[in-house]
């Protein structure tokens, strides 16, 4: 597990360096870059915010766009649950902050609760430390490595999430939910602001609903009439 998380961290270093360098180029002071990486701690929302600053976006636009992109963390948190974070209060307070796509995916890929908790905390902590150090270094010295795409990092992250999600696709229903979710998000992306298409993927859950028998349908219909 440590080696797996290490591979993800190596990829995150390149992205973090790039974020620091791009944010500096957009005119952000070091203090803001450091605070953002530590307290917002969401790569997608951070890149989006910097992009909006360059495009002359208002503070409100940055806040709304960022929160919409991060809204998926709520259903992710519901899926992970407090058992994975741990019992004590500080574990919940700190554990919530290190919730990312990757820490959730690593946790869900495990079978028993103990391994799940270990995977969540290991991934969450390692990525938090990696992201903060690399984005700060990137802001100070610039990204000496250049564009992350040069190293195929942009392919590494979806492949990593895919490898972690595959074990959850145990039955037909899970496969249908996943395929529909991805399809809905892809179709919706050109028309909706970032973040919303991914949330719409929850429509895929329709495939997991119990199919009402014709009898319950009739009862429901007659109930509405009366």
């Amino acid at each position, binding site marked *: 597990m440590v*080696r*797996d998380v290490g*591979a*993800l961290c190596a*990829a995150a270093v390149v992205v973090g360096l790039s974020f620091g360098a791009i944010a500096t180029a957009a005119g952000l002071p070091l203090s803001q870059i450091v*605070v953002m990486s530590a*307290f*917002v701690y969401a790569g997608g929302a951070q890149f989006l*915010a*910097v992009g909006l*600053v360059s495009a002359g976006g208002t*503070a409100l636009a940055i*806040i709304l766009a*960022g*929160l919409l992109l991060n809204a998926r*963390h*709520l*259903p*992710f*948190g*519901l*899926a*992970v*649950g*407090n058992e994975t974070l741990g019992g004590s209060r500080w574990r919940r*307070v700190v*554990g*919530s*902050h290190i*919730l990312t796509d990757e820490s*959730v995916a690593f946790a*869900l890929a495990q079978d028993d609760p103990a391994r799940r908790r270990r995977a969540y905390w290991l991934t969450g902590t390692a990525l938090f430390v990696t992201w903060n150090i690399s984005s700060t270094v990137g802001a100070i010295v610039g990204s000496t490595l250049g564009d992350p*795409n*040069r190293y*195929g*990092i942009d*392919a*590494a992250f*979806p*492949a*990593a*999430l*895919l*490898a972690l*999600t*595959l074990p*959850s696709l145990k039955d037909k229903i*899970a496969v249908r939910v*996943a395929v529909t*979710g*991805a399809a809905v*998000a892809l179709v919706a*992306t050109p028309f909706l602001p970032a973040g919303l298409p*991914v*949330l*719409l*993927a*929850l429509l*895929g*859950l329709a495939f997991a609903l119990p199919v009402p028998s014709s009898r319950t349908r009739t009862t429901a219909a007659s109930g509405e009439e009366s």
Partner: protein
Amino acid sequence: MSWIAIVALAAGTYALRFAGPALRSRITVSEAVKRYLTLAAVALLAALIGTAALLDGTEFVGVARPAGVAVGAVLAWRKLPFVVVVVAAAVTAALLRLAGIQ
């Protein structure tokens, strides 16, 4: 960037992260609901994978990235180690770009 934007974004993001586990600790979740919540996460992850693999913003990203992810997908399906999957995906995309294929 204004500090207000950063503070509000940080506070809002933390609230979104904290809400899920906090809500779950307040309600008793049946096995069936637990399964729905896990499937919801699977749907979200699938959507993230799909959009990250194929799109750059709202446009098709080109061949290199999806090809890298596809190689990773096959290796993951063949149950090769996670590190191999991640490295193979990155190397495939990087080599294709080096060969001039975007």
